[in-house]
Structures are given as C-alpha cells and as structure tokens.
C-alpha cells in the first residue's frame, strides 16, 4: 500500500506545531500502525530528518502508552483497539491519514505526538487505592465476593490509562478514567471503607488538573479501547452526590 500521512510535528511545548505531509510506500496490510510509523521513521532517518517522536511500549494493547489521533479518532477507526493493535489492513491503498497527538488542556504536548499524561497519576495518588499496608492481610477467601460484583469490578479495572477518553471528549473531561478506578473499588468490599472519601478526593483532583466537565455525549466510551461503560460515570456521580451530602451532614 502507498499512503499519504499528515503528521503533527512540534519541537516542544513552547513552539507551535504544524502538520507535515509525508509519503510512505510498500506498506504491508499485516503491519500494525506502529510498524507503519517505524517505516516512516526509518525513511526520515535515512534522509537525515529527525524521526517523529511518539509513545509506544508493549505493543499488545495493555500498557496504555501509545496514543494517536488517527483521522480525528482516538486510536483510529477500529473499535476497542489501541493504536498499537490497529493494523494497516483497515486502510486502503492511496488513503490520506491525519495523525495528531491527544489534544486536551490537561495533557500538554511534549514533542510531536507525545503528551504529558501525569495528571492521571495525580488523580490516582489522590485516592485511587485501598489504604492497606503490606503484611497482615486476611486470607484471600475470608470475604467471598459474588462473581457478578467481581466481574463488574474487573470491567472497570481494565482501564489502561491511555487517555483516549479525554482526547475524544469535546470538553477534555477525564470522567471515564476517574470513574473506572472509583467503580473498580466501589464494587469490592475492600473498597467500601474509603468509598465516599475517595470519590470526593479524586474528583477534586480531576477538576484541579484542568480536565473539563461531562456533558453526557459518551464519546469516551466509544473511543475506549477497553470498552469501559459510561455507567461507571453515573455510579461515580451518584457516589459523589451522596458523599457531599454525608460530609456536609457530618460537618454540621
């Protein structure tokens, strides 16, 4: 296949960037999107131009490192797929492909297609855990957990933290990411003790990082490579309202 790529190039956060057009030839339909980008970079290096900086690591769709807007869609046209798992057989010979970084106020650009997603880490640091120290945990079977609840927890826990939800949201909201962690722990008995404190702390941190608000368009769910459901956002909202009311009652 021969393709025309329009790739966002930006030296660093302070410079302004622009789309640069490149042509790549002899792309095999069995290549992954990342392998196609490697072919582009090899071509650039051979001609003495600096390769395009982009993130990727596991190439198995689970580490959450890779992140590209492909023709305006986070991770490209195939549903439930990360950029690294997208294969070129989903494109046609002669296609024009626009490749851009995640765009969101809370994800500043580092270089080319790389953005800074450390805001996600700070949301987790604010409360995305069970406060248990190592040692002295009771037997793993001490508290039975219904398969139904455990499966729901796992549905939410699958989040890979890639940021596609933020990138595809017109408001740049991190609701799905935050709700996934809150939902994971809220469906388990181990998460109950800190449940309401957690939701308040994580939502406040999310707001502080500059993520936008949710207007229920569900673009996040559509883009999520792990198909995490927006119902977790509803659950988070319910817990948040409940928590605010309870905390208010406690304080008065």
């Amino acid at each position: 296949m021969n393709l025309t790529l329009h790739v966002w190039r930006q030296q660093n956060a302070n410079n302004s960037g622009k789309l640069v057009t490149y042509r790549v030839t002899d792309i095999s339909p069995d290549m992954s999107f990342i392998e196609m980008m490697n072919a582009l970079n090899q071509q650039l290096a051979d001609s003495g131009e600096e390769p395009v900086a982009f993130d990727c690591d596991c190439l198995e769709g689970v580490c959450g490192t890779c992140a590209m807007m492909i023709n305006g869609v986070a991770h490209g046209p195939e549903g439930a797929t990360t950029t690294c798992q997208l294969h070129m057989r989903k494109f046609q010979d002669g296609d024009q492909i626009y490749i851009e970084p995640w765009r969101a106020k809370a994800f500043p650009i580092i270089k080319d297609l790389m953005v800074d997603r450390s805001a996600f880490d700070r949301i987790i640091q604010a409360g995305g855990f069970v406060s248990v120290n190592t040692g002295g945990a009771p037997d793993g079977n001490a508290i039975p957990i219904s398969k139904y609840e455990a499966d729901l927890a796992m549905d939410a826990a699958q989040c890979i933290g890639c940021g596609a939800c933020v990138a595809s949201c017109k408001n740049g909201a991190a609701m799905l990411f935050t709700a996934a962690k809150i939902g994971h722990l809220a469906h388990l008995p181990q998460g109950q003790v800190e449940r309401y404190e957690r939701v308040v702390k994580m939502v406040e941190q999310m707001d502080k990082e500059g993520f936008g608000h949710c207007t229920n368009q569900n673009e996040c769910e559509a883009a999520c490579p792990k198909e995490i459901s927006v119902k977790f956002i509803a659950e988070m909202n319910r817990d948040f309202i409940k928590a605010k009311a309870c905390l208010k009652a406690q304080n008065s």
Partner: protein
Amino acid sequence: MELKSNIPSGPIEQKWERHRFEMKLINPANKRKFRALVVGSGLAGASAAATLAELGYQVSCFCFHDSPRRAHSIAAQGGINAAKNYRNDGDSVHRLFYDTVKGGDFRAREANVHRLAEVSVSIIDQCVAQGVPFAREYGGYLDNRSFGGAQVSRTFYARGQTGQQLLLGAYSALSRQIGLGNVKMFTHREMLDLIVEDGRTRGIVVRNLLDGKLETYSGHAVVMATGGYSNVFFLSTNAKGCNVTATYRAHKKGAAFANPCYTQIHPTSIPAAGEHQAKLTLMSESLRNDGRVWVPKNPGDKRHAEAIPDSERDYFLERKYPSFGNLAPRDISSRSAKEVCDEGRGVGPTGKGVFLDFRDSIRRVGPEKIKERYGNLFQMYDRITGEDPYQVPMRIYPAPHYTMGGLWVDYNLMSSIPGLFVIGEANFSDHGANRLGASALMQGLADGYFILPYTIGNYFAELKGADLEADARASSTAFSSARTESENYIKKLLATKGKRTPDSFHRELGLMMWDNCGMARNASGLKQTLTKIAALRDEFYRNVNVLGGGEELNQSLVKAGRVADFFDFAELMCTDALHREESCGGHFREEHQTEDGEAKRDDEQFCYVGAWEYRGAGNAPLLHKENLTFENVKLSVRSYK
C-alpha cells in the same frame, strides 16, 4: 570476587523464619534516616518502593516510562501461582517448591525457591486486600486454573490480564505513598550508571529523557528492578523499551552476572508476519489448557486445517509426553515445535508455526465458555492476524519471552556489590534454567513485598560512620566522574554521524542471536557469533546514525545507548552458552542430547551457578562458580512423559 550465598543453616522449612528473626531491626525513628533508590516500577520495583515507604524509609523511585503504571509486568496474561491448596488437589508449599526446582531443571537454589513457595500464599492475600479483582467462582471464592509444568490447579488469574491487575495493585500502593509524600517518583529517567565508592553502592546516574540532562542521586542502597534482557533477540514478547542497560552497567561496576545463557523461549507466540515485525505477541500459555497443539503428519501438507482429518494430524505433545500432554513445560514444548518445523511440517506462510486448535474444546464446552475463558486473547489474535480462532486453529511459534539469568544475588537479594540489591526478573535467583508458567509474577511480588523489605533493613542496620552520610557523598568525585563518563559516552554516540539507524543494528544482532543462541545452540555457531558480534559492534561505533541532540527528548539516542549495551551483553551470553557444555532447561546444546532428542544434563560438571565478573573492555570475563547442592529434592532426570 568471592560469591557467598549466605544461605541460613537449618532445615529448609525453617531457614527463612529463622533468618527473619536473626536479621537486625531498625527502630522506627531511625528508619527515616535511610534512603533507598529503587530503579524500575514493575511488579518488583513498585511493590518494593511502596513497602519500603510504608516501613518509614525514604524512597526515590525511577522509571523510564511516563508513568509507573506502564512497566512490562502489565502484559503478563495468564496468572500467578500460590500454594493455597484451595482446590484440595494435593498442593502444598513443598509441592510448589518441588515443582519449581524440578521445572528449573535443578539449576536454582533450593533455599530461595522454598522461601518463594512459602511467601506465595501471602501475596494472594495482600493483592485481594488491595482490591485486585481476581476471577471468582459463583460461590464468591477465588477461582484457580492449571498451568504448564504442574499437575495441580494453583494459578490465580484476572481474566487474561493478571499482570495488569497485579501491577495496578502495586501501582496503587505506590501511588498512595507518593501522595503521602513518602516516595519521590521520577518518571522519564533512564539509569545510565551505578556509583560505587569505597566498596559500596552510593548512588546512580540517570538521564532525564525529556530534557536530556544527566542527574545523579545518592542513597544508602540501590534496588534494581529493571527486568530481563529478552530484547537482545530484537524480536521478543517484551515491550519495546525493555533493555539490559541498567543491569549491564551495574555489571561493569562489579556486579557478577549469573547464568546469562538461561533464556526462556515461550511456545505460544503469534508467528512473525514479515520483515517489518516490531515485536512478537504472546498468546497466554493458559490457552494450552483447552487448545491442542498439532501439525500435519506429512511434510509439505498445505491443506487448510479443517481439511486435514484427525488420522493425518500429529498431536505431537500428546504423543511424546502423554502424562503432561499439551501442558508440558515451556522449554520442552518450544523445542518440540521447532523440531516439527525443522522436519518441514510447520504451518502458515513461513512454515514456522504449529496449530493450537480449540475445535474439540468448543465442541465439548461450547463457544460461550471458551469466550469467557479466553475472549480477549481470541480477539487480540483476530486483530493481529485477521483470522478468527473460533473458526480456524491459531498458528503459534516459540518466541523469546523471559530471562532466568540476571545479576547474581545472595540469599538477601544483594548483588556482589554491597548495597546493590536486585529483585524480580533482573536477578537470577529462583527459576534455575527454566521458569514455570505463572511464576514470574509470583517472584516479582515476593521479592518486592515480602523479602527485600526485610533484608535491606539488615544491611542498613550494619552501616556505620561515614557510610551513613549519603547526602555528603553526593558531592564526591565518584559522583562527578560517573556523570562525566556518561556525558562523554553520549557525546561519542552523537558524534558518530554514520549511515545506519540503531534499530537496524539491533535487528541484525537479534537475528544473529536467535539463530545461534536461541532455542538450540552449538559450539561452532556460538564461536562464529562471537566473532560476528565484535565485527558488528565495531561497525556500530563507526557507522551509527543518531539524529537530534543530547540535551532534548531524543528517542534515537535512547535506542542507540540500549543497543550498545546489548552488543556487550550478547557477547557475555554467548560466552556463557559456550562454556556450559550440557543441556538444561532453556539452554539446549545440540551436542548434549539423548537419543530421542531430550536435554542431557551433566550434574557431575555443571551443577553450579555460573557468575561472570567484568574485567574491562576487551578482556575475557572471569567465571566464578557457586555450587548448588540438592538436599530436599533428589537430582533426577526431568521427565514429563
């Protein structure tokens, strides 16, 4: 260099218990005076950093990713072993210990393995308490499945993403400590050197990958949790970023490297599609619970799988190993697959593949059940190959996956440099010459949660006088000269301005290693490869092309540095493989096999850990031997027939 294993005396069941009591403690008020630098944030690194911080030590943690949640532990699919015996199928600490020693082909330390089996049960409890959503049965209790190399069901799992869930558990514990201000987290940092002065580890040199600046950090101990070196083969199941740089540079500073030739080739990876291939994707070994492995009986049979009747199929694992069948250990399954492909019976466009067929299981339990067990893996396979495994059998082929070798450590997980601890895949300690499935996650977490936090305290407690002044040392010449050395090295790579990219060198080196130091090795191939590596490395330093500058984000520069270390390391690996004149576990020397092609171990001559000491560029490394004694498991021929 003298290698003292420091294995405690006494019966094996009591060694760890007794050792824990004998180790010195540090009172809570003094703990905050000690600083540990943890390099790596995978299962081992994140669990260690979190636990050390909970204990009250100062902790700094470094990773090259943009977040500690991305380390390659995340990609482990199948599960984690623990001797819980929830299934009442005869499992016990002793059986897990026995299986691991036997599975490792009698090349691991008994005492370490026993300790691993002991703490395995606490790991599951800890992870459940953190909220790791393990698979459950309808009664609400934890589910288990069986895995290669074992006849009991002791593997805990979270769908096909066990590594992800365990890592996110450790990451959440680490995040909690970061939020509390007890761990300083440094992302986008690549460790370039270890600083050793007056015989002890004092700190590290790292490069900030965002701005390219070199930084030094001082501490009372360094904990390396920097993973394995499978990417020496270029194509492996490891993430692109996995590299040997940190461990190899520590080796150059005096840490002995043990058993580098022990590499695990995983039997079930998706075969390479072509030249462009960037990495190989693993299909979890758990698939072998329900999939049957076969090739056509006749060489050159190019019919579609469905068109080949059962009478013309060779279910070679079931035929050769009737008692373990498709669950034969990884090394044995991989070699068998290579054998049938070498006979011309391989399948797929390249002829390098065997079928993993779910037809019979789908008929037996129905597609729904299979989907529940392996849904995400089937989906991933479909996405990569464009084929639907519910309809046609998967095609699989062995791929480099895990490395049992690593920096040598004693029973306390301390390397041959005092104050340098090595945990997880980066050390050599528990898996001998072959690792059993679902044991890597177990070892990483055992080291990080339950072993290192004790043993490092014992080291700190013994420090006196000037050794306590870590901050003062940060301005010593050892720090500034280590930094200058790294600076000059980077300048050298940038100044070469040749014609070839780092990746093209890496690909060539990897192919060479795969052909000659991969699934099967022989003396003449290894000798030739040693010569070829030296020649290719010479070309690398003359002809590598690193675009961009040093003081900025530069991905080609990062790759070039990693490839350079893979060259030196590949030499060490071949040297080790050449010296070990036996076949054991993942190390198969063609000269040493039985008549029916099984590995032939030589316990008379090689029942030892081979640990190599670095003696300067251009000099041959020096071999040290740590003899292995087996008092609890009888040395025997490993049979899975």
